[in-house]
């Protein structure tokens, strides 16, 4: 069936082509995925409170994505397609790293049909990235090790201060992840690994480097994919899935004070923050760090602080009333709680008595 043009798409046109998304071993699917009327109905479940015009726009946006108008080879967005990802939840978060397998990159569409498709595509591509890093071999060095028990081993000849926690290591041919380390002397490190070690005695250890970043990202994606289907996504998440649409954010409607010494484009940007997902492009040399700082001021300090312009921004000695209040609030720390002073006197008294008693006991000879 030829792919329909954008103008030809309407509500009655529902895709009938098959090709389920093959997650683990997969080759990127080039044919159009199966899309049901229910999965296209975004507004009812996932986007409550939208007006009809926006609903319509979103409907077509999803359809474009589903039929590959926005890009090629997009996987389907059925909830069952994240089952491969959900399998890595909880204690199994290390599984894809302990059993790495080759995967194919899946095209990242400009808009996602739902959070499950998003998680599937991004997690798959992240594991492709990991696969390529893994394939480059042990880039972080080879060491000699001495296995003690099944949970860990001593590593010799490594810089103990470099740290190997959350590193992928190959010990006698099997892959392990270091979960804890202790410095056991100069150039010597005790490493606790999972899964347990089968090899005993002297072993060769190949370090593939830190993979903690991949693990935390996978955990976050699994968590995101585990959300309930009837749970309404936040405006930020909706914007991430469909950046074409602007969803309202929560900003105080007020203008940045004219005394803040920033240029006009920075001022317009800070004053124009309205949406849940805001994009600010800062070409080279635009001191957008300054803009970040201004946004912070705008959000938390309102306009009651006065500034002087150094290289970027700094606070003038004389601050506004609110700032003074904030300073007081930040300095307000918990004073000595009542039991502490009482406790100290008891300790001092008891300590003196105990020392005296110890001296008496020890000096006494039978």
């Amino acid at each position: 069936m030829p792919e329909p043009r954008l103008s030809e798409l309407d509500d009655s046109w529902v895709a009938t082509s098959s090709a389920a998304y093959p997650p683990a071993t997969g080759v990127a699917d080039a044919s159009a995925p199966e899309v049901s009327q229910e999965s296209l109905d975004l507004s009812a479940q996932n986007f409550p409170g939208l007006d009809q015009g926006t609903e319509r726009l979103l409907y077509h946006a999803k359809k474009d994505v589903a039929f590959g108008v926005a890009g090629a080879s997009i996987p389907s967005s059925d909830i069952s397609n994240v089952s491969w990802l959900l399998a890595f939840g909880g204690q199994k978060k290390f599984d894809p790293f302990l059993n790495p397998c080759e995967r194919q990159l899946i095209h990242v569409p400009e808009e996602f049909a739902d959070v499950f498709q998003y998680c599937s595509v991004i997690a798959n591509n992240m594991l492709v990235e990991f696969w390529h890093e893994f394939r480059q071999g042990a880039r972080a060095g080879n060491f000699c090790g001495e296995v003690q028990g099944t949970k860990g081993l001593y590593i010799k000849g490594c810089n103990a201060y470099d740290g190997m926690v959350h590193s992928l290591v190959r010990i006698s041919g099997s892959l392990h992840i270091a979960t804890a380390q202790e410095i056991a002397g100069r150039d010597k490190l005790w490493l606790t690994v999972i899964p347990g070690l089968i090899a005993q005695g002297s072993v060769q250890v190949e370090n593939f480097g830190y993979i903690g970043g991949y693990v935390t990202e996978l955990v976050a994606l699994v968590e995101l994919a585990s959300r309930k289907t009837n749970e309404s996504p936040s405006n930020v998440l909706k914007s991430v899935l469909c950046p074409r649409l602007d969803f309202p954010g929560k900003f105080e409607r007020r203008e940045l004070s004219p005394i803040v010494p920033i240029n006009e484009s920075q001022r317009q940007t800070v004053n124009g923050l309205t949406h849940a997902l805001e994009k600010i492009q800062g070409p080279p040399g635009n001191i957008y760090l300054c803009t970040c700082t201004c946004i912070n001021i705008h959000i938390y300090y309102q306009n009651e602080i006065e500034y002087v312009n150094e290289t970027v921004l700094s606070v003038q000695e004389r601050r506004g009333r609110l700032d003074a209040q904030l300073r007081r609030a930040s300095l307000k720390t918990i004073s000595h709680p009542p039991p502490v002073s009482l406790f100290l006197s008891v300790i001092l008294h008891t300590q003196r008595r105990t020392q005296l008693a110890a001296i008496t006991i020890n000096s006494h000879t039978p």
Partner: protein
Amino acid sequence: MTCSRNVAVESLAIKLEKLTDGGLVVFGNESRVGETAKRHLLEPKLQRQPAHVAVEMIDKFSSKMQSASSELLDGLCARQTLAIPCKRPLWRRAWSAYMRQRCLYPGLLQEWALRVARCGRAQVRKVADECQSEILGNANIILCTIASTSRLLREWQEVCGKKPRIHTVIVDECGCTTESSTALLIRLNPTNLIMVGDHKQLPPTSMIPEKKLVGTGHDQSLLARCCATASMHILNEQYRMHGKICALVSYQFYENLLLTSPTIVDDRQRKEKHPLIWVSVRGKEKFLPGKTSPVNYDEISAVLRVVTSLREEHPCASISVLTFYKGQLEVNPLTAYQCAGQNSLVYYECQFYFLGLQIRNDLTCRYAFVYVCIHVCIYV
């Protein structure tokens, strides 16, 4: 506020430190964050709390009480065992009972000391938790790398017993942040997400070969994906480049939107009349035996000629020679000057740069082996 690198965290901490005295908290690995950021980690902030001084005293006394208790116990045991007049069990029991009675007060004191030590430790933990809770409660700006957001959530949950309520997440350097990091940001459940960066500059780094990445969209950041279809704010006034270089960059990559600040225009024009010079070299690429990256000797000699004259004119100037070819980098005789490959010189600032673009004479006419034009933008 989050960003992808600890260097950026440090820059932000320097700026924000001046704005918020107690309201800035940094989360991250102590050994990796910079000096300013380190001062705002939870532990150093805890050390500076007035209540923590009392905590330290209690901790010290608790340790002393613990050792005093052990000392007493040792003394009592030694006295009981050494002084037994007879080894028979009945005598032993009788003697122990007698000694317990005789050393009743030291025994009670030992128990008391132990109890005080334990109680002190519990008090230390309680006050420390209260202090941490106070610090986090007063925090209005939290600063960490995207990778450390997991640590932020975990530590916050441990201290406060609930997830943090985050109003706005500002992501710095968003142009080079991978799309997979977005899940970490969404997990913070912010009301607003502000992405600040430039998708026309350094993209997210990938281990996948560039050829395989073309057209997949995997090498683009969330910012790039969003900017393809949505509106965005542009900070169009720049303060770094010479006006003429800015004009070229603006024309080629930013649809003529970039402007140079008038103060910078005057200042730079006074210092340098010709900031951008093109040297045309009609050389040919050659492959050295066993190498896959080509070399252009004509270009090397042209660069050498210009660099030499420049060095004579400016003996103390910092000079950088940039090339996209690994082969060119390996055989370049400019060892006295800084030579760099494709991704290594982004954060250096020099007075003079030489960029070998090596436009191919084939039909593609592309810059060297660069498939993505953004790389040229980064260098220029």
